């Protein structure tokens, strides 16, 4: 696995997610959602390293910001939706 991607409804929500994770000491990278998984068209997401996922989920839970959709990017370049 290369990284996990939190898919967010809006740029601003994605920025809140990224800011929350950064405050928890987790490197988080804002990105446009790949077209293949952006259900309603353009969207934004936040990438986190695989080993930090449990911490990231706890940080978001503490902040009252449950992930909207979560995907894993596999080594072969495909995305797989994951239940948080």
């Amino acid at each position, binding site marked *: 696995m290369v990284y996990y991607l939190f898919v967010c409804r*809006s740029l601003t929500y994605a920025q809140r997610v990224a*800011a929350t994770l950064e405050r928890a000491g987790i490197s988080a990278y804002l990105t*446009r959602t790949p077209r293949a998984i952006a259900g309603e068209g*353009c969207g934004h997401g936040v990438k986190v390293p695989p080993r930090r996922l449990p911490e990231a989920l706890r940080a978001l839970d503490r902040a009252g910001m449950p992930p909207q959709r979560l995907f894993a990017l596999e080594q072969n370049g495909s995305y797989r939706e994951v239940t948080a």
Partner: protein
Amino acid sequence: MIYLDSAATTLQKPARVAAAAARAIHVCASPGRGSHRAAMAAAETAFACRQAAARLLGVGDPERVVFTCNATHALNLAIASLVSPGDPVVISGWEHNAVTRPLAALGAEVRVASGPLFDGGGALAAFAQLLTPEVKCAICTHCSNVFGMILPVEALARLCRQRGIPLIVDASQSAGCLPVDLDGWGAAFVAMPGHKGLYGPQGTGLLLCGADAPVRPLLYGGTGSASLRQEMPDFLPDRLEAGTHNIPGLAGLREGLEFVARRGPEAILAHERELVAIAREGLTQLPGVEVFGDSLGLGQGGVLSFRLHSVDCEEAAAWLGERRVAVRAGLHCAPLAHETAGTLDTGTVRISFSAFNTPGEVERFLELTERLARGR
């Protein structure tokens, strides 16, 4: 120039405001429309501004801070979200045309909660009488743009919550110098310009949206989100922010917000009240000058109106302007406020202050106004 027209726009800004806006022109593209560095720089700029506004203005999450062109735009959005044709709406007697014209255009049934000047308790009592179950919303300015009268919005918000009536607060003259607390008040919307007491550039404004407030767009278009749908997104801020943002303006506004936060709204209000007290005291001594001031001072912000019995208000403002003192005269786009105060026939001369005015400027203004009052 001695600039005493900050109720229209603060002309003197913190130096960082212009610097940030100029920088944004060169480094920021469209937020949310790409993943390249310039788009991300724009996204970071907008988000930083949202966060600064949310922190200063009592908004629990920055998604409920919506960027607008000015306070009028923000008020139009708020009113369109809550009011339909024929709806009964209660407003204070001190509202600006930015409130009354949208209501007239919608065909709302407007009921005015009137009361004497500088009688906040009277205004509250009038609202209490008019806020009956069929009323769709209440609208109240936090501080009159003509007279500087502070309205008791916190108590009004409590009353509206008790009666289940959504409240829109026009914070055009209060944001930056009086406490604004969207979530604490439980208001549906709070609207404000970015270019007055928040010291941002013109072309910026904010609409703070309550957590449960219904929101209806006035503009439709691209948001960089949910692009396959032909309806506007159903989430904030995207639902109310179609099209490319004024990123240079927001970069400047962020610096203005930080300036206010560093200096403290209370300190800015205290400074403006000190200047108002000097002006009120000085004007009261002049012959043929009628001053509209709160004698105790606590019911008034950094705005003061007066009129000269022997000189038309517009002529007085022009005369002062020729001597490099900038004031505003006339009806101040608020005929309802003048009607309530009994000054509709004459209008008033208005002076209004910012954090950058000095007592010396007020003294110079008083010297000139004395000449005017005594026949020049």
